[in-house]
């Protein structure tokens, strides 16, 4: 009797406690989105300095700040696009996040790598693909506020990044000296696509030609997953977290390639009693978790599962979205407080990431 009750309970609990919320997120319910968006907006507005965390590790502090501001901009912007009446509510936080991204202090880690930040200048031969994250955030800012004071910087970044994409014979661009990360390059391509949408400029044929070269070098052919780190064309292991975030970023520029990545990733999902998760390493590959994937538990990665929500929503994959959301709700521990909602274990970074993923525009 006890075992039967435990089994029935486990089968029912995921559906009873999670599915209503999952449905509201998937369908874009305004009240559900606003409750989390208000908390994320407050995180951004309350942060005076350019960084959110002060670990003393320059690269982590800078990258986490860029990710928080970029994802806050994407999440808030996606909500405003779906509910234009909320524009004035979120513009102050979006402007503050864009100001943070345009602040060279946030990129001290990159200046350390190249000798100067790409915000100041990108010399020939330097990749600076980390700027794709900034350019995506500024692109969403510009889509919501075309007259943003960062428009000229946005144009300059995109011009420099797009020329590097188009000139690369492998489709890859260095993030830092001798470091090539395909998910970062996907962010660069997504930023170029979002810039075209925000400015209404025509799509250059070179952007589609780039996708063919990129897929040849950065997509692992047996799994269809994106390689995480590529020393050179066709090398490097595929990873779930990079594939999921890459599928989300590429949905801004190359919806077909993004869909292929999402489908390959979703085929490898694991589930137990209705709770779903995405693996960090596909069958035949093995490794540990890192700062990109977060903890990897029984092969399931926190990063891949979180980013997978965005990829699933962007591609209208409701069943994957619901299964991943059940797991996110169980371990993310959403709590309501003063009309706001926050995923307790996420902090500013995790909540901004989840806001962007849970509100990803369906293509």
């Amino acid at each position: 009797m006890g075992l039967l009750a435990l089994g029935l309970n486990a089968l029912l609990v995921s559906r009873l406690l999670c599915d209503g919320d999952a449905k509201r997120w998937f369908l874009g319910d305004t009240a559900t989105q606003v409750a989390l968006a208000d908390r994320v907006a407050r995180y951004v507005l309350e942060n005076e300095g350019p960084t959110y965390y002060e670990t003393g590790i320059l690269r982590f502090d800078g990258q986490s700040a860029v990710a928080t501001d970029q994802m806050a901009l994407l999440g808030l912007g996606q909500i405003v696009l779906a509910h234009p009446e909320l524009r004035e509510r979120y513009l102050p936080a979006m402007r503050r996040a864009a100001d943070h991204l345009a602040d060279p202090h946030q990129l001290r880690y990159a200046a350390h790598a190249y000798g100067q930040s790409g915000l100041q200048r990108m010399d020939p031969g330097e990749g600076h693909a980390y700027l794709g994250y900034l350019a995506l955030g500024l692109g969403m800012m510009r889509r919501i506020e075309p007259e943003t004071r960062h428009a000229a910087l946005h144009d300059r970044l995109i011009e420099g990044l797009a020329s590097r994409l188009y000139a690369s014979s492998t489709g890859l661009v260095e993030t830092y000296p001798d470091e090539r990360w395909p998910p970062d390059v996907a962010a660069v391509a997504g930023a170029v696509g979002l810039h075209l949408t925000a400015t209404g400029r025509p799509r250059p044929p070179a952007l589609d030609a780039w996708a063919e070269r990129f897929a040849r070098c950065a997509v692992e052919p047996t799994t269809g997953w994106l390689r995480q780190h590529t020393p050179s064309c066709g090398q490097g292991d595929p990873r779930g977290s990079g594939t999921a975030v890459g599928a989300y970023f590429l949905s801004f520029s190359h919806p077909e390639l993004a869909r292929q990545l999402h489908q390959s990733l979703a085929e490898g999902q694991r589930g137990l009693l209705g709770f779903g998760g995405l693996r960090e390493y596909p069958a035949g590959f093995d490794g540990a978790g890192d700062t990109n994937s977060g903890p990897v538990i029984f092969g399931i990665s926190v990063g891949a599962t979180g980013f997978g929500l965005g990829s699933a929503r962007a591609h209208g994959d409701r069943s994957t979205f619901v299964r991943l959301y059940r797991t996110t709700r169980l371990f993310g521990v959403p709590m309501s407080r003063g009309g706001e909602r926050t995923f307790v274990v996420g902090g500013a970074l995790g909540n901004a990431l989840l806001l962007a993923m849970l509100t990803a525009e369906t293509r």
Partner: protein
Amino acid sequence: MILAKTALRAAVCLGLLLLQAGVGRWLAGLDVLDELVTGDRLGVGVALALLVPLRALTWFVAPAWLVSGTLCDLWELRARRSPQFQKSG
């Protein structure tokens, strides 16, 4: 007797639920990552370590224990009141 046992089980479940909600609400007022990096590492670490098992208990174990325990009690009572039980007793 059954009522008392059910009330006890319900009180334990409610206690777990309230404890989980209390820990969650306290953490919700903080930036957990920031606290783990530069703030109250021990307090937040212990709260986080408690929160997930508490949540698993309240989601997966408590409802099943409450319902199946009560059903078992009722079953036992019914068996005790049946003529066969009386005869063998």
